[in-house]
Every structure is written in structure tokens, then in C-alpha cells.
């Protein structure tokens, strides 16, 4: 995780980008003790939001992560509209942007299953723990098994409180 990570969410929030935190960092918000190295966000695919997203991240030179050198990639509205999910490296750290996630759907689908969190001087939305578990389980990846087990234990511990 880049040392600039703590600037990433405030930058997006202050730029008016509608997004919901999912993935490992969302797990940390809920109490996970697992380390993660990128930030996963589901972003709204509305035209206005895509324009804001492009504007806000442009100064931080987003580029496709692990792309072959010289691969043409232009960070603009057309590129974002033409694609859906992007794994990026940026000056603010590694960032995965999802138009949709398996088991969770789009930003609009996830919104009712998200909570407002305050950190780094801003308020942003984070997927709730049951939905995060559902998304991880739906992905069905072997590498997620330990994380999924931890999230389920977290839910048990939270329910005891």
C-alpha cells in the first residue's frame, strides 16, 4: 500500500466521486486483521460520476497495473465508458475500480447495503459486512478462503456484542 493511501479516499470524496469501498480495506473498516495492498471501489457508472472520477484521478497518473510497457492507455471519459473494471496503479496507490462486482452488482445495487464511515477527515461509503462476505463468497476464489473465514468470524464476534 502506498504511503499516499490515506490521501486516496479524501481525494475522491472531495472530488464528488460516488463510490463504495469493498474488498480488503472494507474488511479492515469492519475489524479485519488482514493486510491488503490495494483499494477496491465500486463506482457509479453515471455520466457525471465518470467525468468526476476522470478529473479527480488524472493528476495522479492512473495506468493499468502490470500492463506491458508502451501499451496505449488514455485516462479519459471514453476509456472508462468503454470498459467496466480497471486495475490501476496511481500516484496515490494501487486502485481497483469496479463498475460491477460479482455477488454485489453495481453501485446502485450496493448502495442500500453500504454504511457511511468517517475517516481521514471525510465521510465515505463502505459495504456492510454481510454483503462483503456475500461478495467474497460469490467470487469463489481459492485465495479468498482465509479472508472469508476471517470475515465470518468477525460477523460472529460482532453479533456477540
Amino acid at each position, binding site marked *: 500500500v502506498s504511503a499516499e493511501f490515506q490521501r486516496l479516499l479524501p481525494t475522491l470524496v472531495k472530488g464528488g466521486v460516488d463510490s463504495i469501498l469493498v474488498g480488503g480495506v472494507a474488511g479492515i473498516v469492519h475489524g479485519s486483521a488482514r493486510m491488503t495492498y490495494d483499494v477496491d471501489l465500486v463506482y457509479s457508472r453515471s455520466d457525471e460520476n465518470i467525468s468526476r472520477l476522470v478529473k479527480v484521478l488524472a493528476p495522479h497518473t492512473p495506468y493499468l497495473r502490470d500492463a506491458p510497457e508502451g501499451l496505449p492507455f488514455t485516462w479519459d471519459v471514453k476509456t472508462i465508458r468503454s470498459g467496466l473494471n480497471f486495475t490501476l496503479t496511481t500516484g496515490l496507490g494501487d486502485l481497483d475500480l469496479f463498475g460491477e462486482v460479482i455477488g454485489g452488482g453495481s453501485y446502485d445495487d450496493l448502495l442500500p447495503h453500504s454504511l457511511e464511515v468517517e475517516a481521514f477527515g471525510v465521510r465515505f461509503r463502505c459495504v456492510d459486512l454481510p454483503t462483503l462476505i456475500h461478495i467474497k463468497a460469490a467470487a469463489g476464489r481459492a485465495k479468498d478462503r482465509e479472508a*472469508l473465514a*476471517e470475515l465470518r468470524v468477525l460477523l460472529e464476534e460482532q453479533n456477540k456484542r
Partner: protein
Amino acid sequence: MKATSEQAKIESLMRDVDRTLLRENLKLTPAQRLEKFVNVARFTSELRRAGERMRRRAVQTAKA
């Protein structure tokens, strides 16, 4: 059948989760959890850089 087997694997892994770490994290606010994460991330980044410096020095020493 496949789902049941997957479920059994997850339940087996749940037995190995260190609940003490989670209980400590649950005492914190979400903002404090994220601050702790950033501090751990800084610590691991520094260790990674130290490791890279050490490997570079080892290569230079071997060449000398």
C-alpha cells in the same frame, strides 16, 4: 455438493482465525482501524525498502 464442500473448507479455516486480534480491532472505531492499517502499511513498506537495500549491498559486496 461442491458448495457444501466449499462451506466445509471455510468452516475448517474459521477454527484457525485468531479471534484475539479481531476482538482488539472491534474495540476501535472504523477510523482508528484504518489508521492502524496505515501505520502497519508504513511499517511493512519500510521493512521492504530495508530488504531491497540489504539485497543491493549484498550484490555490490559479491561483485567487489
